[in-house]
């Protein structure tokens, strides 16, 4: 008896974790779904072939989102790696960490409305540069905080050891620090990728409707009550993180909002 309750709970949990993805994919292949039918009446590949066809807005925005996310993730990871080293060995480490946490904890959409004025002044509203910069402002604090746990005394000892063995700073960095940091760098890159990939509020304000990322399209489809296309774009949004998960579950560990 006791065991069957445990199995029931586990089954429920498994459903909670998997059902949403299954249902979204099902909807993305559907066309007609009138109440009170439990399953859609028509399953088809048409939605996918239309939307992924040449020059369709969705396939374009997939490429735009991907490019933005890759660029933001790359820059945030490299900058965060360097800056977190500075903070980690700084005598005022705690204060600087606190200052970095503040932009990290703020709601991106509220951050965006407060910064909008400056973005307009700098001509960064409604273009890619603006979106990349705005997303970098929220991804970089994450990256810095992430790397703070990497720069410990031991890494410092390793570097000093290389110096006393006659190694130059470049050699210490290439042979020791970089290999030690490799998994951190990879995980941070994917985290920052997801921060950008998932971002909606800030992007909608700084993009001003002119740059359509995937999340923006999802929102448009939902507003138009086009649930099948909305579900399809949702699937496109979920796909990269699920693939990452397939390779290594450690790639996905943190999510805001």
């Amino acid at each position: 008896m006791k065991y069957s309750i445990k199995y029931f709970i586990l089954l429920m949990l498994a459903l909670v974790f998997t059902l949403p993805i299954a249902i979204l994919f099902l909807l993305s292949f559907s066309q007609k779904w009138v109440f009170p039918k439990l399953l859609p009446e028509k399953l088809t590949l048409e939605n996918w072939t239309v939307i992924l066809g040449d020059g369709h807005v969705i396939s374009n925005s997939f490429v735009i989102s991907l490019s933005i996310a890759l660029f933001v993730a790359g820059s945030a990871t490299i900058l965060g790696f360097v800056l977190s080293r500075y903070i980690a060995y700084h005598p005022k480490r705690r204060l600087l960490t606190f200052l970095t946490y503040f932009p990290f904890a703020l709601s991106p959409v509220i951050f965006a409305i407060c910064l909008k004025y400056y973005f307009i002044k700098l001509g960064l509203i409604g273009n890619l540069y603006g979106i990349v910069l705005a997303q970098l402002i929220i991804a970089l604090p994450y990256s810095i905080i992430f790397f703070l746990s990497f720069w410990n005394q031991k890494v410092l000892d390793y570097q000093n050891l290389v110096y006393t063995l006659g190694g130059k700073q470049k050699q210490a960095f290439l042979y020791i620090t970089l290999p030690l940091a490799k998994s951190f760098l990879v995980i941070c890159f994917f985290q920052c990728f997801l921060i950008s990939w998932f971002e909606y509020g800030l992007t909608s304000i700084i993009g001003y409707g002119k740059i359509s990322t995937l999340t923006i399209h999802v929102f448009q489809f939902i507003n138009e009550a086009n649930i099948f296309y909305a579900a399809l774009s949702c699937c496109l949004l979920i796909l990269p993180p699920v693939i990452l998960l397939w390779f290594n579950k450690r790639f996905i560990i943190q999510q805001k909002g």
Partner: protein
Amino acid sequence: MFKPLNKTLNFSILMLFTLLPLLAGLGYAIAYSFGLVGVLNKGFTLENWKILFSTSEVYISVLYTSWLAFASLSICIFISLAVVLAFPKKFKSGIFSYLVYMPLAFPSIVAAFFFFQFLSNAGILARLCHQLGIINQISDFPNLVNDSYHIGIISTQTFLSLPFFILLYASLYQAEKLEDYQKLAYALGASKKQTIFKISIPILLKRSLPSIIIYFIFKLGSYEVPLLLGKSSPETISVLAVRKLQKFNLLDIPQGYAIAVIYAFLVLLLLFIAFKKSKHQYEV
């Protein structure tokens, strides 16, 4: 890159990307709310703040947002604790160690869309009830999205944070050597219930407090979920602030900024508490 960059350069880049946007953004919001900048500025005035506080809108919004964050986190922590204490090893390896990550692949907006499809009057749950003969027509099904009890928002938020807390507690369970403490408690004659409530749960909660506060802050700022699943009133802080700022009524804009300022100070305060609570350097 090989050499530790020049200190001034490091400091400048750090400030350029973290403190400067923060101070500039917040400074602008404060200045706007006091009538110092903006299209309609007439010099320093407390008028906007007075109007804002003369109606209950902003109080309700803060309370409502906090309530949503509190409710979804409480449910989430309750489920996570129960699941981890019942199955302490399930999430370290095997199929569940993968499944538990699934919700992390969901952006908020996708989770909100799914829960709308699942919980709405014509949604999957309603169809299921219809098939089972529990309801006869759409209107028989209770409102679970855009509803007065905020069931849609709270379910979505719980779903989104569940993996984080399950994984957190599963790793704390090992890191804090909870199994040893439990055995010790049994050896000292504690019952299973006493061990759970006096040993395991207090240890886990205490160690996770900074993370809970940080997560609470994230939830306070959440935007997409209440935007899609909330009612038009009350609104959460971010939805309210954005609506005031994006609408065409210019008189609303200073109030929108004032709300942003209130929110920022709330976050600052909570962050300060989280830092105080974490004895060692807080890491994500």
